[in-house]
């Protein structure tokens, strides 16, 4: 790694501006990242964080301003190749491995020089070594197809590849919400690695909506709002509340601690009862916890499929589903925001087979307001939204139905703090109104808000926690319990 005294910024942006049509995704950003620095980047959904990443990575060109890589010259244009040559590596917000290739083969994609005899062996060594270094104790087989891995494992592979050394060592690694699908243990391992990497002189841009992580890891925190940098302070300059305020959300009084007291609904009618042993009552918020990929998503999917028909549509569905893996389970990529939001509700907005378009637009407008989808026009394509805003559309789709049960598959991935609070409130209000929520989350903090929690382990329910039993320690204990027994 480069010597500690070298202070030439790895990347320097000068007055960077990026327009998508009329949308000012970036509106004059000046930012430099020095070696050894870990820059924490926060901001509401759609603030422009991912856009910034794409500029630095060379994937997008500036509309205005300049960018300078390492000791090179400042110019308004970059290229992916130039960025890679300067040692810039990226882990994108949406997973970007090739699911049809094996882990080893995926190493080949970013490393152009990895050819010739025995390239497979070398690639395998590179990724195996990094995985072991960053996530000790992982169980990923480098020969497995990425499509067969869980979403957390894919994220781990992508991170390992980004940090891997081949030809040019990485000098700046950009992590765009790397922990959104990792559980607490893995996230901690990643943070530890980032610390080591920076200590050795590498630079990191760390984007996350989990403010705790940012406060923990960043040597400097930059807050973005509507395409601009609004605040910038060194480590210790922010506390949690200060950060939230800087991001522009007025945190409602009392919402500071997300843990509302768990309610007991013993007397309420049981609305879900699966052979696997999961029950849920009317008005209850049931949490599914445990390490990632241990059957929670499958359990939700089974409930959803068993309670809806693929032969008969209905105006009053029994369940609604909020996807976490947006591209796979949620989005209709060529449709508008409006159409994406209204699909599940549509049967109720239909008269004699024809869609009542006025009612549809009304519903869309209402949800845009209620859940704060940041767009100037609901007719815009869904993919023009930032990741977090796409997630809000999926919430609107599910909550907009009359379904008495809402299934949520880690739905807060990439949702900013302010919105999260709004959604928490909305969920509580709906639950009070008699709706049942079954909620899988990788964030223990969220699970702790539930009335009852099932901890999954190896595809089965390992523990059921209620009331005061719902604590982080108990959940963790149950997650590892059987492993200890084996």
């Amino acid at each position: 790694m480069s010597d500690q005294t070298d202070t030439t910024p790895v990347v320097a942006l000068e007055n960077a501006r990026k327009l998508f049509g009329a949308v000012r995704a970036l509106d004059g950003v000046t930012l430099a990242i020095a070696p050894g620095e870990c820059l924490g980047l926060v901001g509401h959904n759609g603030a422009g964080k991912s856009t910034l990443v794409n500029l630095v990575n060379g994937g997008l060109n500036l509309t205005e301003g300049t960018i300078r890589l390492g000791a090179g010259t400042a110019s308004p244009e970059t290229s992916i190749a130039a960025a890679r040559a300067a040692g810039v590596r990226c882990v994108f917000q949406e997973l970007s491995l090739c699911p049809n290739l094996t882990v080893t083969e995926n190493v080949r994609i970013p490393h152009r020089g990895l050819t010739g005899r025995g390239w497979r062996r070398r690639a395998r060594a590179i990724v195996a070594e990094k995985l072991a270094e960053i996530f000790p104790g992982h169980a990923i087989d480098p020969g497995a197809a990425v499509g067969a891995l869980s979403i957390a494992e894919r994220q781990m592979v992508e991170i390992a590849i980004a940090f891997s050394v081949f030809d040019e060592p990485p000098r700046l690694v950009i992590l765009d919400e790397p922990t959104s699908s990792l559980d607490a243990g893995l996230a901690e391992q990643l943070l530890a690695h980032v610390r080591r990497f920076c200590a050795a002189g590498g630079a990191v841009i760390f984007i996350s909506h989990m403010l705790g992580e940012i406060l923990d890891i960043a040597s400097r925190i930059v807050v973005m709002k509507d395409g601009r940098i609004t605040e910038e302070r060194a480590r210790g300059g922010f506390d949690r509340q200060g950060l939230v305020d800087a991001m522009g959300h007025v945190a409602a009084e009392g919402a500071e601690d997300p843990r509302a007291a768990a309610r007991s609904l013993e007397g309420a009618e049981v609305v879900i009862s699966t052979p696997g042993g999961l029950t849920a009552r009317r008005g209850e918020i049931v949490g599914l916890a445990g390490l990632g990929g241990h059957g929670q998503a499958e359990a939700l999917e089974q409930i959803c499929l068993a309670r809806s028909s693929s032969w008969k549509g209905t105006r009053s569905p029994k369940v609604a589903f909020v996807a976490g893996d947006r591209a796979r389970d949620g989005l209709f990529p060529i449709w508008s925001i409006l159409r994406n939001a209204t699909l599940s509700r549509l049967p109720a907005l239909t008269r004699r087979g024809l869609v009542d378009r006025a009612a549809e637009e009304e519903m869309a407008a209402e949800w845009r307001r209620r859940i704060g989808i940041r767009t100037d026009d609901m007719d815009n394509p869904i993919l023009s939204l930032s990741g977090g805003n796409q997630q809000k559309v999926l919430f609107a789709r599910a909550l907009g139905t009359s379904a008495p049960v809402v299934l949520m598959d880690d739905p807060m991935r990439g949702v900013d703090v302010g919105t999260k609070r709004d959604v928490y409130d909305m969920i509580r209000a709906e639950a009070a109104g008699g709706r049942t929520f079954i909620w899988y989350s990788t964030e223990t903090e969220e699970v702790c808000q539930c009335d009852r929690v099932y901890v999954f382990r190896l595809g089965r329910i390992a523990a059921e926690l209620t009331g005061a039993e719902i604590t982080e320690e108990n959940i963790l204990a149950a997650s590892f319990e059987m492993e200890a027994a084996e």
Partner: protein
Amino acid sequence: MSRPDASAAHPPHRHGDKPVTSLLSILRKPWLWAFIAAGAAFVATAAVTQAGGWGLGMTALTFAAFSVLVGIGQMFVITLGPGNVDLSIPATMTLAGTLALKAMAGDPAMIPVGLAIALASGLAVGVVNYGLIRLLSIPPIIATLSASFLIQSAAIWSNRGLRVKPPQALADFATGRALGVPNVAVVALLVAVLAWVVLERALAGRRVLAIGQNMRAARLAGVPVDAVRFATYVSCAVLAGLAGFLLASFSGGAALNMGAEYLLMSIAVVVIGGSSIAGGNSNVPGIWGASLFMFLIVSMLNSYGAGAGVRMILTGVIIIAIVAAAGGRKVSR
């Protein structure tokens, strides 16, 4: 088949310059190019006709009507997403035409029965097709191809290729005109309007479009995926049955090889018409434009005396040129 990375497959479209004039928004319609091309071919052909364009136009409407009928069915199927296509259309046309004409045996009183038989054979084919796709998990392209062999055998077995004449009244209807417009074109126009309403305004159409983009997401969002796909395959086959019935009546009897050209034709009119073959985005007016174009381009090249080889090459080049001009996938609504 769920798409693993839908967001990657569909780069977001730049948007923003919202206040476009209506003229500009028309220019962006993918189906426009099909009509422009059809118009150009029409003008070029009409330029060398003695009698002016009227006769040519009406002839074009007549023959385009058959392509429109099968094209609309194919469009719904293709809209269901990658890998969905119905290759059994020609065989279905043959079977429907053969059974219907045999049943009518030239008797005008039997026309309703004949029509019912044609539509029912389409229905049966649709059920078989979807049965193979769903129950045996065979990819649609091969399921419908295999089914088409069975259907063709059934047609051979039922009448051994003997040509039965249609009842005179039916033949008169199929070749006749109402207010100067060919009857078959009127039928196709009605079907097209209905298809447009279903696709743009109806719940069913919205569901087809959703499945085409992401079947898994559609199922999880409460769309009755099987019912919609079933209905789509059945409608396609029923439309093919109707087309076969009309074509047999129009051309004086069913032949075993009738409809053979509608295999590629049905796909061509869908895609030239501006539907995205990747599914999830389709459009009805384009089918008319493309059907007219496909007829007129052959007429034009024939009129200019091009031989078979040159004609095929030019047809291919023009198809590619149109699609290239119309550009790639558009974002809908």
